[in-house]
């Protein structure tokens, strides 16, 4: 079975632009979470979606938004990009949502904002 896939692998954007990142979960997984990982730090939780509904949101500004589609794939959108948005964006899928659950990560999208 294929693991979690993310696209694109790398992306370079200019300040003020908008970006869309995509994620396909493991087959059968209904939950998708998004994380931002800045160099030298652990991943920071951005969103969790389960069955197309937002279940949790981290401490990120409204410039960050996401959605989940009927096939459980997901998009993360970031508007008005800032230099500080440069990071590795990780998507993780899981069978369940919340409580005791195990997440499986994709390879990430490396976003560079210049």
């Amino acid at each position, binding site marked *: 079975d294929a693991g979690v896939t993310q696209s694109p692998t790398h992306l370079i954007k200019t300040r003020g632009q908008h970006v869309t990142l995509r994620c396909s979960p493991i087959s059968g997984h209904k939950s998708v979470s998004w994380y931002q990982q800045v160099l030298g730090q652990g991943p920071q939780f951005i969103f969790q979606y389960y069955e197309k509904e937002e279940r949790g949101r981290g401490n990120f500004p409204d410039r960050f938004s996401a959605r989940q589609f009927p096939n459980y794939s997901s998009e993360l959108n970031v508007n008005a990009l800032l230099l500080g948005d440069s990071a590795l964006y990780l998507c993780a899928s899981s069978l369940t949502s919340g409580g005791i659950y195990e997440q499986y*990560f994709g390879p990430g999208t*490396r976003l560079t904002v210049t």
Partner: protein
Amino acid sequence: TQLLEQSPQFLSIQEGENLTVYCNSSSVFSSLQWYRQEPGEGPVLLVTVVTGGEVKKLKRLTFQFGDARKDSSLHITAAQPGDTGLYLCAGTPGGFKTIFGAGTRLFVKA
């Protein structure tokens, strides 16, 4: 603010040595996960610990969950260069928000 503190932040050892990495919090977790991450890749799940006092072994890796479910440790026996990477602990203290520690960067020299 709920935090997971990992120590040490960085560890450089010789092949064959033993090491222990710690993950501590003031919060109680229903479970904790350990991941290993290599440069440019996503974290890979190693283990989930659920019960206070639980010990799980994965080949040369031993994971322990504290009795109070506030802390965990990862012990590696006879480390090998292939163990090099960033070791992350993570937990969901409640709701749907998962918290990660900052990680322990391990370098094993041949």
